[in-house]
Each structure stands twice: as structure tokens, then as C-alpha cells.
């Protein structure tokens, strides 16, 4: 272990402080064309007419692409993992969020590209839009997707389920039932470098892609799928990302730049404006989380019922996976023997949502920790003691059937209490992660083994 705890120089540090680090926007290739996109001005509409002929004839314009130019327009970011695709690279019939790209232009300058975008003839028929996920499941909600408003592929279910123990027993046995609704909102990751890409057509027929992606091989797969190309015709250059925080996991610019570079036979570059980044790039997802805990008056959490609705925005992208992570973490760092979790990925007319630091987990942790404070208040117990009592211990089983070997809830909670100067009773201070025993192994926890079941496949 030479690295942990050691003060090591950043290998890219000198480049950063001398202005020599080459970000994607700093790559210089001769005769590069600029890209601009026609984006939907509506949250939800049908495209009734799209004619790029006038724009294509404008001075300085070298290529325009629409859905017709894309070998495979509809592809899903998780398709390789079995999540069916739902998102067109360029909108064909419907636009489902404000800012959704419909066509893209490569021209001699940013201004020429923008002028051409404005010359594209397009008409829309507006449709009612949906923004509140809680309403997505209502029968009279505007229908957004060919799937309806719920992503339906969790094995044989249309949502992610977790079942552990006997939830009805827990709620019958409880002294107190504590309910709460939590709605963490969307957050823009806001990297200082906006989405940017440069693509160079090489003489051997390959494409070199200078990408700001956070997930190089992943983006390669997405581009190859849309182009219907083998991976070996793509050369990705990346590794210098001007901040991502999850927002650069989605492949936002690379594929469209590849299509334009091929069509124009020239290098192209697309750098989003800050405004595009704020309006059209994916955000952290908003969630609607309803929790109900069955609690004894001496502070045991016997059971938890959870209804979660994850706002995917207009398309699935990584949301099915985010919800799965959310499901795994919905009991927090605590052992709750009886669980019933139902989580839906719902569509709205917001920008598609994606990863941001703790995808799916941060939202549920916020809900769980806030909820535990409410539980403590409801039964008049110290919130630290409530947490320690129900903390994960060696040998406990989680909702998704994992038997814990080295959980850290107890030492971390104790260390946190010490740091903020909380005096805990001696019996709590003496706690460890060791397997439960004595009065910390009440009957209902002793019987918990092998009761969990995670329903539904998919991601």
C-alpha cells in the first residue's frame, strides 16, 4: 500500500496549472466544421413537417442529418444489458421534451450552422405535457410513450419489487406506524465544461472521436450501434473530462458528430452552449418516495412499505438501473426484516434523467435518513440510538438477499457521534458490528434468514 494516505502528485497537475492540458475543445484539427442542432421548442408535440432542403442549400452548410440518415435511430443506452431501446437519436414522429434534437447541421462557422438551423422548415402539433411523476400513473394522464407512462420490463412485472419476510405481520404487530413522503428534485450536474465532441474522418474509413464522455467504452458501443458499425472502425480519444458528475455518462454528442463527419467528409465539432447544457442535458432524477415504517415503541423497525416513482424524463436511458440501485438501498444501512418495495420508472416530459453522484441511492438515503428522524420523534427515542439499534450487523440479510460480512453502520455511526460531540449511553458506545446476540437478537430478527426475494429481472 504505497498509495493510500500518501501525498502523491497529480499526474495531470502540471498540465492543469500551466494551461497545457488538452480538453476536447482544445483539440485543433484543420478545416473543422461547427455543429448546431434544431431542438424541439415544445415539451410534447408531434412533428407534422420537416424539410431541410432550404437549410441545406445555404452558404457554408456542408451537411444536415435527420432521423432518415441514421442506420439505427432508436437505441437504448442499456440495450446491451437487455433493456429495450426507446429513444430516437434524432426525433422522427414525436418530440417528448423541450430541447430534444430533431436535426443537426455542420457548417463553416457557428453562425452559419445556427442560421441553417433556423432555416429548417418544421411544424408541430402540440400535445398535452406531463411534469409531475405522481400523476404519471393516473388513468387520465397525458400518454407519453409507446409503453404508456411506465417502463414495463422488470421480468414479468412492470416495476421493481422487493419482498422480504411477512410485511402484514409487521404492520399488525407494530405499536406505531410512521409515514412520510419525500420528493428530491432534479439537479443539473453542471460541469464547467459543457458537452463537446470533435470527430475526424480518417483516410482509412475510420472515425476518430475526441469525446468528453465519462464512460469511453460505453459511448463507443452506443455510437457503433447507431451507426451499425463494428467497434474497430471507431477510435475514441478521451480521458480528459472537464467535470462530469454523472452528466457525461449519456452519449450526448458523439453519435451525431460521427454522422455529420461522415456525411460532410470533414472534421466536425459540437460544443454546447451553457444554455443548451442547462435546458437540454440530462439531470439527476426527481423522485417521489412514500415510506411507511412499522415500529415498536422500544425502537425496533419491524417492517417498511415503500412506493417509489422514479422520473425518467422522456426516455429510459439508465433509469431502470438507477431504480434497481435505489431498491437495493431502500432499507438504508439498517436491518429491517420485513420489506415490501414497489418501484416504478415513470415517464414525464422533462429532459431524460441520468446518473449523478450516487445514482438512485442518494435520493433514497435522503428519504430514509429523514424518515428515521421522524420515527425517532414519533416514539420519543434518541435518533442515534434508533439507528444503532437497527444498524446492520454481521450475518444480517439485506432486502436483496445479501448476507452481510462486514457492515460498517455501527463504527461509522459511533465515530460520527463522537465527532459532533454526542454523548451516547455506555451500552451504545460499546456496540460493534459483531453478529447479533442477547437482547439485540429479538425473535423477529432471529427468524429473518432466507426470507428475502428480489422479484423481476432486467435492470
Amino acid at each position, binding site marked *: 500500500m504505497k*498509495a*493510500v494516505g500518501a501525498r502523491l502528485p497529480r499526474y495531470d497537475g502540471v498540465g492543469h496549472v500551466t494551461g497545457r492540458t488538452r480538453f476536447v475543445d482544445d483539440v485543433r484539427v484543420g478545416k473543422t466544421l461547427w455543429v448546431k442542432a434544431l431542438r424541439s421548442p415544445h415539451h410534447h408535440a408531434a412533428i407534422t413537417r420537416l424539410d431541410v432542403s432550404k437549410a441545406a442549400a445555404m452558404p457554408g452548410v456542408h451537411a444536415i442529418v435527420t432521423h432518415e440518415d441514421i442506420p439505427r435511430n432508436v437505441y437504448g443506452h442499456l440495450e446491451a444489458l437487455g433493456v429495450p431501446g426507446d429513444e430516437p437519436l434524432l426525433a422522427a414522429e414525436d418530440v417528448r421534451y423541450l430541447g430534444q434534437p430533431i436535426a443537426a447541421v455542420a457548417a463553416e462557422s457557428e453562425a452559419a450552422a445556427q442560421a441553417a438551423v433556423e432555416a429548417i422548415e418544421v411544424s408541430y402539433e402540440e400535445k398535452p405535457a406531463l411534469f409531475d411523476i405522481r400523476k404519471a400513473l393516473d388513468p387520465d394522464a397525458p400518454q407519453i410513450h409507446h409503453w404508456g407512462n411506465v417502463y414495463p420490463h422488470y421480468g414479468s412485472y412492470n416495476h421493481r419489487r422487493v419482498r422480504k419476510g411477512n410485511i402484514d405481520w409487521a404492520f399488525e404487530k407494530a405499536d406505531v406506524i410512521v409515514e412520510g413522503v419525500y420528493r428530491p428534485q432534479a439537479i443539473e450536474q453542471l460541469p464547467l465544461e459543457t458537452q463537446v465532441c470533435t470527430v475526424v474522418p480518417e483516410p482509412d474509413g475510420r472515425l476518430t472521436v475526441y469525446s468528453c464522455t465519462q464512460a469511453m467504452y460505453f459511448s463507443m458501443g452506443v455510437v457503433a450501434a447507431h451507426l451499425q458499425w463494428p467497434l474497430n472502425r471507431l477510435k475514441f480519444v478521451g480521458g480528459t*473530462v472537464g467535470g462530469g458528475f454523472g452528466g457525461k455518462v449519456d452519449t450526448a454528442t458523439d453519435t451525431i458528430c460521427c454522422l455529420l463527419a461522415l456525411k460532410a467528409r470533414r472534421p466536425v465539432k459540437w460544443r454546447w452552449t451553457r444554455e443548451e447544457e442547462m435546458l437540454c442535458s440530462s439531470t439527476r432524477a426527481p423522485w417521489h418516495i412514500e415510506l411507511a415504517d412499522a415500529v415498536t415503541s422500544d425502537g425496533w423497525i419491524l417492517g417498511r412499505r415503500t412506493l417509489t416513482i422514479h422520473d425518467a424524463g422522456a426516455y429510459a436511458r439508465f433509469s431502470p438501473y438507477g431504480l434497481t440501485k435505489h431498491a437495493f438501498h431502500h432499507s438504508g444501512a439498517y436491518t429491517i426484516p420485513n420489506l415490501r418495495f414497489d418501484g416504478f420508472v415513470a415517464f414525464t416530459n422533462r429532459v431524460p434523467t441520468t446518473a449523478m453522484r450516487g445514482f438512485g441511492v442518494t435520493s433514497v438515503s435522503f428519504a430514509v435518513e429523514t424518515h428515521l428522524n421522524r420515527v425517532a420523534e414519533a416514539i420519543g427515542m434518541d435518533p442515534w440510538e434508533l439507528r444503532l439499534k437497527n444498524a446492520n450487523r454481521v450475518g444480517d440479510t439485506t432486502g436483496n438477499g445479501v448476507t452481510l460480512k462486514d457492515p460498517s453502520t455501527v463504527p461509522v455511526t459511533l465515530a460520527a457521534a463522537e465527532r459532533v460531540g454526542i454523548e451516547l449511553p455506555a451500552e451504545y458506545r460499546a456496540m460493534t458490528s459483531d453478529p447479533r446476540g442477547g437482547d439485540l437478537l429479538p425473535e423477529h430478527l432471529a427468524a429473518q434468514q432466507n426470507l428475502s426475494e428480489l422479484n423481476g429481472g432486467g435492470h
Partner: protein
Amino acid sequence: MRLTVNGIESEISSPPLTPLLHVLRDELDVTSPKAGCQQGGCGTCTVLVDGEPRRSCLTPVAAVDGASITTLEGVGEPERLSPVQAAFYEKYAAQCGFCTPGMIMAATALIDRKGGPVERDEVLEALGGHYCRCTGYVKIVDAVMAASRGEVGDVQDLPVSEAGEPSVEVHGSPA
């Protein structure tokens, strides 16, 4: 129009309303000032115009015709870092590095103005319009204060890293 950029004088052919930022990046290939927002809001495009920090995205090039411009490339060399550069490097004040050019230019100008140690509130005032999304501001403010006090110098004491990957062996690491 003419500009002297990092000591080199050039004739400028971009149209007069072109932001100085684009003249530097696209006409002169001086790429350390970044286009973080192009609306004055982030500070990563900041350069020195006749020694004073200015947002290059807000400055039409015609308004600085004849001026002397300093960008991060002109502050120091990789082998000869300025005190502010050395402090940013040594104190880990740059993560992704995208805000770093503007931060260092603003800090350099502040220390020049003050001509001596700068205090925390002075750094906050001078750099308050510069955004960093990675580092948080503690290390950046510490680096500027240290640089103003000449408290840099153990850069040499840091182990030298090879180009590419750091020379670190991590036994048993899953990666």
C-alpha cells in the same frame, strides 16, 4: 487590430465584435482560456488585459485593440512554475482543471495588486465570481493565500510521476 499575447505581437483578423476569448482560442490557438459559459458567469475565460483580470468572453476584441494580454500559458513553464501555479499543483487546488486557468489568472492579479500576503476575505472577493464544480473552494483559497506568502516550494519533494500513469503500485487492488 493588434494584440500582444504572452509577449508575442499579432495582427488580428477576426471581426471587431468577436469576443477576445474566441480570438485567443480560434484565431491564435491559445487555448487555456475556456468557453465555460460565454456569458460572464463562470470565470474560466479570465485573462489579464494590460495586467488587469477581465472576462475574455465579455470583451469585444476591438475594445482591447493594442493591448497586452497574458493567459495561463504566459504565466510560467512546466519546469518553472509561478508561485500561484506551484501552490495550485502542490495543494491539489485543481481537479478536472477546467476552472484552473481563470482561477490562477485572477489569483495572480490579486497578489500583484496587493503586493503581499492576501487574506481569506480578499481571495473570496477577488475570486467570488469564479466557479469550480470539482474541488470545492477550500483548497483553492488555501493555495492563493499560500502563494501570496511565498509558502510554496516543496513541489520538488513530491515524488516525480511518469508521463501517463502515476508510479504507484497498489497491491491487491481490484482495479
